[in-house]
């Protein structure tokens, strides 16, 4: 009992420590691809520390939702990542949860963020909320197809994380099957949409009218903003972990935790390279073209689903 609690605590610490790092790596890679020096990979940490030191500015018209939303967003993201196997072992909530729980945890966090965006009464908050909900509603079907495909392979058609974990552990060679590659491609698109990256959203823009996620959290400051940023880093890690451990389970069955952790981080770094490459080579889409983007993700995932039956 104590051992598993300790394991859980270690895993939480680990996630909190590594999550901002990958955002920093993506930024650094983007700069490198442009032959720029770029910010340090640890910049997201400095930002979080800076934000925690700053005062909170809270509008007088807001309700309790505005104040609790950052914490709910952060906690749901954290809980979602704990539901997935990070290294060889299943720890804590991952024993008894379901992949659908992960999806709805993220949705819950997002709903609170959207409500908080509306809560301030500013034009941008509402605008951002409506856009964010649009994007998330559009990519959700693809996410579900991926989950269904992954679970239908297990033989018992269960979306339980533990059964999928068992299957993955015994089928690490599936990483190179066409099913996984298709699902991986679809998931990459979902990751890009969900973590507010180009071509869906531009995380570094200063143009308040084009923002999606940033517009929604425009009113936040200080500690609240730090929690939202941390939540976003972790949310990104949820999708990356899913890709690294379930879709490309290379080296997932290595029992040494430290080597397993090393492989896990390497795989995520490989994904960050892909994300950075996409960001550097594409242009932000028109808002009305985002449905096309989501449709492509959906079609790819459906192809993966069908391939699953063809190859059976």
């Amino acid at each position, binding site marked *: 009992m104590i051992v598993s609690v300790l394991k859980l605590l270690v895993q939480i610490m680990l996630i909190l420590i590594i999550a901002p790092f990958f955002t920093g790596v993506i930024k650094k890679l*983007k700069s490198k*691809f*442009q*032959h*720029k020096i770029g910010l340090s990979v640890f910049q997201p940490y400095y930002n979080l520390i800076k934000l925690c030191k700053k005062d909170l500015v809270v509008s007088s018209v807001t309700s309790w939702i505005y104040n609790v939303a950052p914490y709910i967003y952060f906690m749901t993201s954290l809980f979602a990542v704990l539901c997935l196997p990070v290294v060889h072992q299943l720890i804590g909530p991952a024993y008894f949860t379901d992949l659908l729980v992960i999806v709805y945890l993220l949705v819950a966090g997002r709903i609170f963020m959207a409500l908080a965006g509306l809560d301030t009464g500013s*034009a*941008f908050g*509402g*605008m951002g909320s*409506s856009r964010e909900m649009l994007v998330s509603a559009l990519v959700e079907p693809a996410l579900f197809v991926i989950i269904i495909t992954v679970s239908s392979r297990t033989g018992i058609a269960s979306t339980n994380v533990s059964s999928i974990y068992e299957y993955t552990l015994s089928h690490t060679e599936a990483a190179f099957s066409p099913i996984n590659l298709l699902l991986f491609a679809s998931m990459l698109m979902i990751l890009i949409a969900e973590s507010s990256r*180009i*071509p869906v959203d*531009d995380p570094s*823009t*200063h*143009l*308040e*009218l*084009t*923002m999606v996620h940033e517009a929604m959290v*425009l009113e936040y400051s200080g500690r609240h903003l730090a929690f939202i940023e941390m939540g976003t880093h972790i949310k990104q890690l949820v999708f990356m972990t899913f890709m690294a451990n379930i879709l490309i389970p290379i080296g997932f069955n290595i029992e040494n935790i430290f080597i397993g952790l090393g492989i896990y981080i390497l795989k995520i770094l490989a994904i960050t390279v892909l994300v950075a490459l996409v*960001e*550097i*080579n*594409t*242009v*932000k*889409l*028109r*808002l*009305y*073209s985002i449905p096309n983007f989501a449709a492509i993700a959906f079609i790819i995932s459906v192809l993966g689903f069908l391939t699953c039956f063809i190859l059976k």
Partner: protein
Amino acid sequence: MVSEAIFDTINRLLSSHMLESKLLNENEIYSEVSLASHKYDCINIYNNIDCVLVDLFGNDTSEIDGSITVYYTFAVRSSNTLITLYIKLDKKGSMQISSISKEIPAASLYEREIKDMFGISFTDSADSRELVHHGNFPLKVHPLKKEFRKNTRLAFEKREQSFTSISGTGVFEVAVGPVHAGIIEPGHFRFSVAGEPIINIEAKLYYTHRGLEKLSENEDYMKVLLFSERISGDETFTNSLAYCQAIEKINGITYLPERALYSRVIFAELERICSHIGDISGLCVDTGYIFANGQFAMMRRWIQMLCEQLTGSRFLRNTNKPGGLRRDFIMDNKKLILDCLNNLYTEFNDTIEIIKNNGMFIDRVEHTGILNNSIAVDLNAVGPGGRASGINTDVRKEFPYAAYSKLKFNVPKHANCDINCRMNVKIEEVIESIGIIRQALDKMTDKGSVAVEIGKLKPYSFAFGMTESPRGENIHFVMTGADNTIMRYKVRTPSFCNWPVLCHAVNSNTLTDFPLINKSFNLSYAGNDL
């Protein structure tokens, strides 16, 4: 020659009620008309001569004749002539003029400006709201009247500003600015949106009004030169050039050393290249195209570094002076300039090829922000914005200054009216500008003086200085006072003309596309607010 023909036409058209008429500075016709008939006369000229209203401004001439003079300036672009009708308003009188804004839409903005600055009211106008006076500016203050002292501290007011309100199910107002999320100039935009599509947008500017016109009053003309350089950062050279040309005209200096003229062309074109590349870079940034943005930002920096090497200022400040240039900046730097341009030419063309082949980028800019030709004509859209909507106008061709008449270049013209088109105009202009600089370097002599003495200013004289700034037609009116001072310095930058045009181009696009459309015009707030 041609100006004289127009002069005769005007004399004939207005013969019955014209008070005074003269042809000054070779191509500027000034005709005084009476307050009663000016509306009829303006419309008469507007309809019968192929001209556009390019300036409308007041001038407190109370020290000469105790009145406020209002000038209506029309440009006959086909024959290098400016027609100015002016009326004198007795300061003790009713201070009312009948408006021409319903007949000549472009006049509306100028009339609102005069109303705020001089307290003259326009009867029967299309729009009588405040323009310069924003919500924190006291209404009863009219800064350009001579009674207003420069160091007056204004009271801080809080007033609701009126915007066109649009109501209906699902129609919301989105207020943006004047403080923005990025480090950009202040301006307030009021959008009426139905979801994402914009139904109507209104811009409320003048938050960066520095009172440059007021500050210039009764100042030495060399000091006003410094003001002119600070109208708008990236148009420093063209603005100072327009001012210098006006001063030169006033003092009757028709001949400048050739080296000065060619140097002015070179600097003006360097500024244009810099500005246009900056605009294209901005378009890339707004679409999240970071690679291309980095490329163009780098090229822009090359030109700025070249400018710094040549003149010591990246924005070409302290380069011009009435009568020529402050010193010979080109000297033996010919090779330096040519090398920089050659590098730029290859790099620019390569990058343009890349961005033109990026379907996602082209999808963003194509068919977005369409500015109809009829609106562009009515509101006198100038510069690349106008040229992308089929208005083929360029001061360099129509009112040639410096050495432009001796150089060969094309003025790009397109008619697709969208962002892509405006970008293409800018791209082609960069290529043309590189050609112009090469020709100028080729034609100019290696040595020679770069300035002439202009002597003492002729008191109480006036002239227009016109240049083609990177953003378009730039008109400066200068009237001198006694002892080398300036009595009235009226600046009309291209941004002033294009702001209302921009609002029309934005309508019926989506909110997310607004920054992109805004960038495609890239208007100056400071240059508009003065």
